[in-house]
């Protein structure tokens, strides 16, 4: 059972009351495979289609248009990662808009989590 993210009301220096600066403990997505197991079920449940590394986000796969990829799919992915106790640092709607497949999203999220 993944440990839930714990959000505090204030940042570590106590000035900015925003989840953006929240502390996150116990990120459970310590391998790329765990990232996959975290986000693919969430995407599949949202869009009603099975998801693998090779599933295309747009035409020929989930069939999403660019606005849905940039907004709804992005939010679906980020919420799944947050629910696994992890905080993404720089993975943005623009990054997901550049992804062609679900595997690209996994790579992008893993690169963000494992960055120094």
């Amino acid at each position, binding site marked *: 059972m993944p440990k839930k993210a714990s959000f505090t009301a204030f940042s570590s220096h106590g000035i900015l009351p925003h989840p953006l600066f929240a502390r996150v403990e116990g990120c459970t997505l310590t391998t790329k495979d765990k990232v996959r197991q975290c986000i693919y079920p969430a995407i599949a449940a949202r869009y009603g289609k099975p998801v693998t590394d090779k599933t295309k986000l747009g035409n020929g796969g989930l069939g999403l248009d660019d606005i849905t990829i940039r907004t709804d799919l992005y939010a679906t992915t980020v919420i799944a990662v947050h629910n696994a106790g992890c905080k993404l640092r720089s993975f*943005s709607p623009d990054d997901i808009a550049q992804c*062609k497949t679900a595997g690209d999203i996994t790579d992008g999220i893993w690169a963000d989590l494992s960055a120094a």
Partner: protein
Amino acid sequence: MKVLVPTIILALCPLTLFSQGANASSKEFRNRAEQAARQELADAIKKQDWAKVKEAADELQQLQGVDKAAAKPAETNLFDMLKRSGFSLSRSPDEEKKGALFAFTQDRRANTDAVFNADFYLKWQPKPVLFQQIYDKYAVFDTLAISVQGVLTSADDKATDAWRFRLENTFFTRTADNNAWFDGLVATLSAKDESDRDFRSDRIGAELWLTFNSRKAYIGQYSGDENSLFQFRWRPYVGIDVGGTVSDEPLPGTPTSNTWLMARGRADLRFTFLLKALHFSDFTAYIDNKYVYLCEADKSRNYLDTGLDLEFNDNVGFTLQYTIGEDSPKFVREQMFKGGLTVKF
């Protein structure tokens, strides 16, 4: 005025230079991730699952070499370098997966000059400032972006020519219920400078577009699957544009109006059954209609854009486009048929 707008845009750039919060202990996380990758590697070797062995080895290498990798630029070509710097090139703001169009035509028999056409949307969005709220419902303010859109032709008839410079921001929400009819709202607010090809007719103002996502109504997601004969999706928009015209010459088709109310609808039809037979990456027909009501002048303008998009692979394609009606900024009537190669990255 030509200098003022870019200056304002550049002055606002530092606003985007915040950074997102990091995980509480990145080093601690990487230590745990290294342990997990070692364990995964050992398990994969035991099971003789060589694909997993490769992935675990890559992860381990990535985690151990991340500091070295961070010190070295990883760009391999110009497109990658531009992409990593936050640049993107596509045909128009809502068609990021469609290539910018660069085309030319020449009537050899009549010995006329070649006519060049370009439809492109070049955007720069620096690494993100996301203001996210994650509760039962989810809302995001995306990073500010700067863009230039060109709909240009070298032909004498300059009715369709337009430059659009924008400082834009998107706000969106997501509902948690996977079975709802309403999935979320998408709002895009832009400060905009719109002009003709020669920058003789300028309109400066603000533009707001609203749309929403709904999988059940096929808004934003295709119906059916790869086994269907056709797939269909659509998207409605409403918008408002408030601004003023700063022109060296009068605009022939634009009665003075500071407020425009706008409605737009787009529908895509994908010929799934043809893709397997022809072995193309994609083949779609689209229709996109924009209606503008000029409030003070009590006039309306309509612009229809329809066509076929054929994609040979992920980067190169071919498009046929037919447009009729009056589009901003001049709202001069046009009727055009275009064909050309498309490129995207």
